[in-house]
């Protein structure tokens, strides 16, 4: 479906209309091109239908201003739709940047999104663990001995005691943590999708 600008007789109407569309575009710029196009087309259709039904024979500028005022501020009324669609895009593509943006947009929409943000941050901590392993391979790892030690991360040998012999993963540490991150990321994202669907059902 192609976007077509509405033609106005009065250049002032055109300016007001274009300015409003700019605000709409700005309010939805975070979404995929396809979603942006869909919203823009629908808002444009609303403005067109509204302006062509000028029953009171008002002047064009006044009538357009009336239509836009009744429609409301795009930054406000489009906010829930943008947050919703962004979350849908993010959980569909599993793209971490989109997930981060979607969580930021939805942070005020319930405690569950705060919990999800914290869980993703927790996941990010494992990425740091991989970097730390590269920098400091001796003291980073999975150290385990029954009833004695269990450390996933870094240990400090302040008393001169070395636990290197209890490190269980060795060269497999980075691949294992990487697989763990990927699995946890997929599970978390699937739960995020499920949470969104459950929230929609409760509305």
């Amino acid at each position: 479906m192609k976007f077509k600008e509405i033609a106005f007789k009065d250049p002032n109407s055109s300016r007001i209309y274009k300015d409003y569309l700019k605000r709409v575009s700005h309010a939805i710029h975070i979404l995929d091109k396809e979603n942006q196009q869909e919203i823009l087309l629908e808002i444009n259709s609303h403005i067109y239908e509204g302006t062509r039904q000028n029953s009171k024979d008002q002047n064009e500028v006044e009538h357009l201003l009336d239509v836009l005022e009744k429609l409301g501020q795009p930054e406000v009324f489009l906010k829930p739709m943008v947050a919703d669609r962004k979350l849908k895009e993010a959980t569909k593509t599993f793209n971490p940047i989109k997930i981060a943006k979607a969580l930021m947009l939805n942070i005020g929409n319930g405690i569950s999104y705060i919990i999800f943000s914290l869980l993703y941050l927790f996941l990010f901590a494992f990425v740091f663990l991989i970097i730390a392993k590269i920098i400091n391979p001796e003291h980073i790892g999975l150290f385990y001995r029954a009833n004695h030690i269990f450390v996933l991360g870094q240990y400090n040998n302040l008393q001169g005691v070395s636990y290197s012999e209890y490190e269980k993963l060795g060269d497999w540490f980075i691949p294992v943590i990487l697989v763990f991150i990927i699995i946890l990321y997929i599970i978390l994202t699937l739960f995020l999708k499920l949470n969104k669907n459950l929230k929609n059902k409760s509305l």
Partner: protein
Amino acid sequence: MNNEFINKWISQLKKGTLSFLVLSILKDEKEYYGYDLINEIKKRTAIEIAEGTLYPLMNRLKDENLVVSKWVEQSSGIPRKYYNITASGIDTVVEMTKYWNNINKTINSI
């Protein structure tokens, strides 16, 4: 009388019943585009709604498979997005109507 309280209550009630209103209008299985649907709500209910709020609502109803939409080209070159109720939407609005009638009866009996 606490006007502020009443206004807030009316606003919450309008917000809460908008999906019911929309589905009730669509249940006759006539298709509507956004602007047309707003006019129909105004015509049938004399309720003034913030027009922009209809679009996020339609998006949610679509996500829930209660309505479907399709774009229809117009001679003006500016297409309309028409909404139709689904079978699940009809079942849902029937249940909503039963609940609404029940609550109405209860309130009237108090």
